[in-house]
């Protein structure tokens, strides 16, 4: 989600909650600096509020699973997730009196910091990456369709090569005099650089675009390779080369899209399990603390 001026309300509310909490903490905590904060009424209030915010933040996942249920707009939940999730860290710090603790509380604090940090990292990625993807991947397709599009590109390239080299041979054969000294062979040889290029460079790249070492994976190197190829084949094949260059460009864009997509959503692989662990351990901590 883009963090823009539409977040102003949430920002002000969050700062207000933070300010009030800070004042309360300073007012009650400083005179009793030596004692434990978590067990006091205010400490429990901070802990409860912080945990409630965490639970609310975690419920976003559940909300997304029932997208059509009219439980409030998903973007409101997302904004709440971002701001209340972020607020849970200072509230828990107030709850703990800025002590790291040991045992379960230490684990909890570590988890909370990692979860909030990964969330901030994710929020930053989701703030910037959509714009990067929009700018850099002009031929974007639906992520799940990438494999299919790649197969199509390979097929298309194969067809272009067939048409170019097969057509050339046929034209040569038709145009040749029966008793002339083998012009068909001579002309068809002119397509050899194209065929070789396809077999040795282009096809392996289209089959495994993520493999390192292919010159076609880099736009500048690819341009140079295609320029060189143009000098080796007749002008009639230049259109084919242009099409193949276009296919390469699309393939690179798909690779870039995959990478960006991984960045956009990959961090969730860390954030979600740790958040669930945090909620679980937080609940255990609450039960143990209240009971014992």
């Amino acid at each position, binding site marked *: 989600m*883009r963090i823009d001026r539409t977040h102003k309300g949430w920002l002000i509310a969050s700062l207000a909650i933070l300010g009030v909490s800070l004042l309360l903490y300073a007012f009650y905590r400083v005179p009793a600096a030596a004692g434990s904060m978590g067990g006091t009424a205010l400490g429990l209030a901070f802990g409860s509020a912080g945990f409630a915010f965490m639970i609310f933040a975690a419920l*976003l996942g559940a909300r997304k699973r029932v997208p*059509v249920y*009219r439980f409030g*707009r998903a973007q409101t939940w*997302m904004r709440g997730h971002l701001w209340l999730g972020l607020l849970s860290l200072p509230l828990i710090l107030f709850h703990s009196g800025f002590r790291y603790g040991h045992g379960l509380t230490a684990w909890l604090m570590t988890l909370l910091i990692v979860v909030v940090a990964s969330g901030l990292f994710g929020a930053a990625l989701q703030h910037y990456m*959509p714009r990067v*993807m929009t700018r850099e991947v002009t031929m974007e397709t*639906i992520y799940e369709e990438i494999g299919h599009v790649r197969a199509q590109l390979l097929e298309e390239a194969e067809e272009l090569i067939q048409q170019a080299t097969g057509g050339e041979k046929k034209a040569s054969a038709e145009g040749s005099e029966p008793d002339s000294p083998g012009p068909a062979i001579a002309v068809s040889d002119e397509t050899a650089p194209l065929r070789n290029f396809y077999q040795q460079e282009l096809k392996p790249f289209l089959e495994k675009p993520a493999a390192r070492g292919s010159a076609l994976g880099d736009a500048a190197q690819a341009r140079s390779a295609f320029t060189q190829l143009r000098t080796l084949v007749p002008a009639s094949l230049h259109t084919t080369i242009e099409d193949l260059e276009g296919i390469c460009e699309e393939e690179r864009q798909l690779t870039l899209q995959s990478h960006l997509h991984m960045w*956009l959503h990959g961090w969730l692989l860390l954030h979600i399990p740790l958040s669930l662990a945090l909620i679980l351990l937080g609940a255990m901590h609450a039960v143990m603390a209240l009971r014992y």
Partner: protein
Amino acid sequence: MLFEELKDMQWQPDGTPVAAEDLLRLPVFKDISPQFLKKNANATVWRHFKRGEIVCREGEFGSTAFYILEGKASVALASPIAHVKAQGRPEGFLARLTSKLTSRLAARQDDRREDEMDRRSIPIDAPVDLAYDHPVAELAAGELFGEMTCMNYYPRSATVRAETDCTMLEMLRNVLDVLQKSKVFRAQLDETYRRRALDSHLRDVTIFRGLQQDFIDHLRDRVELMRFAPGQSICKQGDPADSFYLVRLGFVKVSENYPGGELVLAYLSRGDYFGEIGLLGGGTRTADCSALDHVEVVRISAEDFRAMVEKYPEVRAGLQRSARERQEANQERLQMVRSVPLENFLAQGLMEAQSLLVLDLSKCTRCDACVTACADSHDGVTRLVREGLRFENFLVATSCRQCRDPLCMVGCPVGAIRRRNSLEVIIEDWCIGCGLCAKNCPYGNINMHSFTAQAQAPAHEVKHEGDREHAEQKKAVVQKKATTCDLCTDHAEPSCVYACPHDAAHRVEPRDFFAGTLGQRVGKSGKARK
């Protein structure tokens, strides 16, 4: 037996080509060149059907027409006469919170939609129309069906079943094309049309319902049946208005020229009419009308038209109202085109849209929550694909955009897809689920929604009491109906927008949205230049 000539004819087995000599003995082939028939010996074959046997099914693609030589056949629609209705507004607070939109089939008496057609009959590719309430009719010897399929390769519009043992000629396009040029054959088809279909055709137009039988009888022999080849002009903008037309077969393209290109106002199919605006207004044509494919129209002369509107003031009032609505809708479209000279958008057909789903790609994380929500809202069938045309950082997602050239309307074998006055697409109850509109839509915005439905046993089947073969027809079958984005009208906000967690999906009125967005940019750049 209709044809005396058939009495001593040696009938050949099913699928055997009909010999040219045999064809020439039939009156309708009398003035066809024997050389042509010999050269196209395999283009017409004998077909024999036992009682109850299916001749062709609705929705199937084909390339042939059938001419009944002997016996009777019934023509019917097996698809439920209903449209896809999404509903999700249960009573009670809690129920509303958890409500999903569920799709069901609803007939127009249960769910009346805005601008829904009030037709009493369904146009099909046969000399008869089917009644909306009871879509079954009978075809007899001497009748031709499947013309549209044969000439234009459209799907079959109805299911034809042999009511008695039948013998038919099945012919390919080259034969039908020549036949249609035959005076004898044309005369027979025209006579059948005047006798069987003109009444229902005229009365099917709501405005003409008040016509009395004597006036229709008067018109019956006066109307002219005209044919037009694909691309042929029927009338031109600015020409004197001298006729009123009813479309009998094929599709008529109605368009206007304006700076920047041609604007298609409508595709008219069987049962639609045109020409009234010119006749009622200034006496000149206001739009170009041309045949999109093989078109046949019923031409009513200006003289008869005037007599009609003078004799029936309610018809005049109805036509004037309809003409006014059409003109207003056209003006609205033209205004939209003129007021926002954005060539890119015109080219992409966006500005004319009534409502668009746009995704702000600078916010969209490509999580597909919108698509999932759409599918969840509509029984797992999404009406939205997160792909489409881009403009700067906006992606116009694939959802119906009511575009300038509504290609989806071309070829519907039963004329079930059309525009409302508000220009939005509406799919009428008699959609047979052939999928042609979904295939034709260049943006993939029409989806086929499957339903398990109890196949309706038409009345003609019920009368065969105890007939096991017929009794078995009444069983659960999967039927398809075309659907477009319904904007989740039962909810305050479309599900796709409601479910977007990133504030990236928006339903917008395109003119305001894009003009506003561009206007702001122009303003900013203007200030920067100063």
